């Protein structure tokens, strides 16, 4: 049974979702930040966390973007295989939703990495499609600030590097990022797959709400171990020293080749703009 969904409906929902993400930080994140305030040993670190909480509350109350960098819109669409989009051009609708939602926001997208002309409306978004069973459409968005994006890294490790090599690479990435990534950060780790997919795994790890673990016990244990190692760096809120450098480490893994142990680390800043809706 095919379910028809109009592109206009998708466009309206996506516009609202992008706006919500810009103006309101997720509840699970705010809760984690409040818990971090209790855990942070540095006085300045606690003051900075308080500022971040106050900033989030004021942004929501006044409907202002929590951070001036509302990033590139990264859109994840899981489309049920029984869905048929009707009533217009799907890609044009996605662009239009971004254009509309970013009207009051900063335009940070340029047309070409060398020419560097601002597109003027924050289009195009980055879009990831997945076909899944069923007749629903799950739309998830990240408004990804590039302070943290710029400090993200990828390595094609050899299998001999093993778990130790993975840990070293993750900790090293957070250490090099320091204050640049606006800590307390959220660390998305991708493991496995190929060169192109390991980065996407790391980004998908950032979609997961805080307070959740990887369902695989060995990966959940790795998440916990990495979180402790990262927080032992002492970088702290905004890099001025402290016990809370990261709020969470999320690991997503996929099958890979006998020759490889790909690892990618995608950092998210202390303003993780994220939202989702089911159609």
């Amino acid at each position, binding site marked *: 049974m095919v379910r028809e969904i109009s592109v206009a409906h998708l466009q309206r929902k996506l516009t609202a979702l992008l706006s919500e993400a810009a103006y309101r930080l997720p509840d699970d994140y705010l809760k984690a930040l409040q818990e971090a305030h209790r855990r942070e040993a540095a006085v300045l670190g606690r003051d900075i966390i308080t*500022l971040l909480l106050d900033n989030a509350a004021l*942004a929501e109350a006044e409907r202002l973007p929590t951070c*001036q960098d509302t990033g590139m819109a990264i859109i994840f669409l899981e489309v049920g295989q029984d869905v048929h989009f009707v009533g217009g051009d799907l890609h044009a609708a996605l662009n239009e939703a971004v254009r509309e939602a970013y009207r009051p926001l900063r335009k940070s997208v340029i047309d070409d990495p060398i020419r560097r002309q601002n597109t003027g409306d924050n289009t195009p978004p980055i879009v990831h499609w997945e076909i899944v069973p069923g007749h629903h459409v799950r739309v998830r968005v990240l408004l990804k600030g590039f*302070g943290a994006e710029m400090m993200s890294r990828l390595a094609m490790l050899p299998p001999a590097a093993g778990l130790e090599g993975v840990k070293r690479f993750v900790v090293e990435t957070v250490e090099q990022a320091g204050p*640049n990534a606006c800590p307390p950060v959220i660390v998305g780790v991708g493991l496995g797959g190929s060169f192109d997919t390991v980065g996407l795994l790391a980004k998908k790890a950032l979609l997961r709400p805080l307070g959740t673990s990887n369902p695989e016990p060995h990966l959940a244990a790795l998440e916990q171990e990495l979180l402790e190692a990262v927080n032992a760096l002492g970088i702290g809120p905004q890099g001025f020293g402290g016990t809370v450098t990261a709020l969470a480490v999320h690991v997503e893994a996929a099958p890979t080749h006998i020759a490889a142990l790909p690892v990618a680390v995608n950092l998210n800043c202390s303003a993780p703009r994220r939202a989702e809706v089911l159609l």
Partner: protein
Amino acid sequence: MKVHVLTTPLDDEAVARLRAGDMVRLNGILYTARDAAHKRLVETLSRGEPSPIPLAGQVIYYVGPAPAPPGRPIGPAGPTTSGRMDPYTLPLLERGVKGFIGKGYRSDEVKAALVRHRAVYLAAVGGAAVLLAQHIVSARVVAYEDLGTEAIRELVVRDFPAIVVHDIYGGDAYLEGQRAFRQHP
């Protein structure tokens, strides 16, 4: 923690009082500039052409603000990552810029040049963009309007809060702050 209330432009005396880890409250004018404005400004200077903004004693804020909502001078305006401006910082120090506001690490070259030119690097809290914008009284584009958010703006600020990261004595608030909490060998 020491709090210094400062008025821009800054002179050598004011800068000499600042130590890494101190808080400052800035009043007066800040000039905004980030990646594209720095590139254009430094290219202009290297051709021997005049700067479109005053530089001696001034403070540059690395920011690309969000658009101003109705009735406000500016949208949320937090700091961007300073390290990207490292390649453009020396020519500005040579022309007398006394302070830079951003977030994140600077190169060893910039740190040494700050000491040499008696200038400071300050950090504003990244992610506190809405709160920081409340300290901006007015904003107007004064150069490179075509760059949009990256245009150079003249901001008038009141008690704009920042933390001294690098002072003129080689102090480093990141290094010193982190040392106390680092558990790695």
